[in-house]
């Protein structure tokens, strides 16, 4: 990647309200940030917190969940289920060091194409200000100590063997990573 | 009989970009939404004296007729009563646009020398700048001397009676921290952080 870093936003939109609103935004030719990738689900109630975690782990910088306004759910109250999950999930994420603004739940009705634009733009800018979450890179980085060890052990074994022959201790120190 | 004048407008009479410039000033953006319904003129208490009705001013600005707009007496007749701004169905802040046009007219010297309204504005500002407060007596006296020295005498009667009722004084009021005020104004003049904040 030699291009400038761009925030990546994964959005789960419910079929009836928010996905339709995004369609409306399209029909109305409202322009917004191209950083969002929408995944359609039938209802925000379908959004399993695993999806949100997985998206973050796979490289999303933020996740947006869009559902119908309270009282307007096509499935009566799937959105309330999501709202409840959202609260606990946000607390959990906070404890796991993920910034508040990276995960957001918004109620966007089928008529609110402009709100899709506003929320996507707003979130994209917030993510840009926060900088990359970069979990895949982090996982790699964290695991580098294991790879290094394998190499270190190897080197030390060789050095020890040599030192044993020469009758002196190894000068090499394993630094705290 | 009235003198006849050319009324047709050629493209050369326009100053392209003028409208866009005005509409880029915060508060003036919605001018582009004008539907020429005339509500502004309909509610304007001064519209009966205007050479161009407020509605026409909106149209002239939008179409870049800078000279017509800035030399129009309409912008100086606006008494800032905000009736147009409140009633406009497109929520255009017409009063603020009038302010913007007044500023431009003053900057570009588009008004007759002894025309009292801009003179009042400038005298007013000079006094505030120097002293921090307005002394109405001094201000009015200055204004009359500058614009209609001949009429000033005629106003003396009113002045006398005001003085008698304790409402007229030539004493200059001053604020304590004039230096502070000057510094604030100076900082506003500094172009550093975004000029006059209009961009």
């Amino acid at each position: 990647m030699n291009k400038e870093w761009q925030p990546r936003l994964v959005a789960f939109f419910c079929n009836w309200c928010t996905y339709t609103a995004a369609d409306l935004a399209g029909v109305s030719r409202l322009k917004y940030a191209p950083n969002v990738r929408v995944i359609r689900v039938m209802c925000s109630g379908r959004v399993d917190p695993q999806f949100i975690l997985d998206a973050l782990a796979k490289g999303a910088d933020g996740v947006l969940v869009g559902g119908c306004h309270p009282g307007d759910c096509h499935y009566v109250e799937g959105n309330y289920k999501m709202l409840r999950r959202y609260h606990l999930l946000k607390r959990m994420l906070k404890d796991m060091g993920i910034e508040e603004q990276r995960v957001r739940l918004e109620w966007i009705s089928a008529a609110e194409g402009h709100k899709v634009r506003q929320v996507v733009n707003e979130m994209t800018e917030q993510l840009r200000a926060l900088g990359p979450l970069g979990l895949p890179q982090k996982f790699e980085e964290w695991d580098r100590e294991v790879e290094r060890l394998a190499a270190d052990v190897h080197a030390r074994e060789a050095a020890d063997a040599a030192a044993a022959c020469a009758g002196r201790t190894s000068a090499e120190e394993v630094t705290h990573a | 009989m009235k003198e006849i004048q050319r009324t047709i407008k050629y493209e050369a009479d326009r100053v392209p970009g003028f409208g866009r410039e005005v509409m880029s000033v915060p508060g003036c953006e919605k001018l582009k939404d004008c539907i020429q319904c005339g509500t502004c003129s309909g509610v304007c208490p001064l519209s009966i004296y205007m050479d161009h009705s407020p509605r026409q001013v909106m149209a002239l600005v939008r179409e870049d007729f800078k000279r017509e707009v800035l030399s129009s007496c309409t912008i100086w007749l606006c008494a800032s009563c905000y009736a147009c701004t409140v009633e406009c169905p497109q929520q255009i802040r017409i009063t603020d646009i009038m302010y913007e046009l007044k500023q431009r007219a003053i900057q570009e010297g588009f008004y007759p020398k002894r025309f009292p309204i801009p003179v009042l504005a400038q005298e007013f500002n000079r006094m505030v700048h120097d002293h921090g407060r307005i002394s109405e007596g001094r201000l009015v006296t200055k204004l009359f001397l500058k614009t209609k020295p001949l009429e000033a005498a005629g106003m003396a009667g009113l002045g006398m009676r005001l003085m008698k009722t304790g409402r007229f004084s030539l004493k200059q009021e001053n604020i304590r921290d004039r230096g502070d005020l000057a510094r604030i104004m100076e900082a506003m003049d500094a172009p550093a952080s975004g000029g006059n904040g209009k961009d």
Partner: protein
Amino acid sequence: MKYGYFPGCSLKGTGRAYEESLLPVLRHLGVELVELEDWNCCGATAYMAVDEGKACALAARNLALAERGGFQQLMAPCSACYLVLNKTQHYLDESPAMRRKVEGALGTVSLKLSRQTPVRHPLDVLLHDVGVEAIRQKVTRPLSGLRVAPYYGCQVVRPYATFDDQANPTSMDQLLKALGAEVVDWPLKTKCCGGSLTGTLPVAGLRLAYLLLKEAKKRGADAIATVCPLCQFNLDAYHDKIAARWEPVRLPTVYFTQLMGLAFGMPAHTLGLQRGFVPLELPAPTAA
């Protein structure tokens, strides 16, 4: 109830009577006003016409002084001051660039704008903080028989005031009724008085003042009650000129606070009533 008090230049000059009546009346109602230290001119409409940036900074200095003085609210009795201070707050809220610039300028003299200080008009405070009932209870000399045309003028309700209806305000009507006066209903409550045009373009400006006086008279008013020093001046000071140009329409124009003071039993001269050109005559009190 304590408010910062921003008198404005007029209340120290042509509008002295407004201050002279406002202060004792509010004190009588338990409202404490503390004059803002070293306030400066709000800039009025003239300044806006020259440089809105400076106009903002000028008004903002007063807001910053209010903040420094620890006032939670600021009272501005002059309509122009009330409008300009409110407008400045709106302006700063809507334009972050302007806010940065103004805050920077204020910063050079160690002033800051870190919070909103609501700017209130006395009508608003009297109606919503004090309450009509509390006012009614203070009335000792009801203004029975006095027919008053309430005149709000333009800038107190337009475009920012939220305390009353913009097209048909009624707050002063309620006050006047509480004082025992008879309120003249007229459709000119918020029409322009001519503003500063009375001085600069008398043809245009004075005509508006003339029409207001004429209509109030026609509808049987004994007096016009105003809330703004410029309105009061325009309706009071030019009777000779109006008579010369059109017809005599003599009618006293007083501040609503003067009427309150009278109804509270305060002597007329302590309320600045002697400063008006057209004297107010109260009908003889009827035995209740």
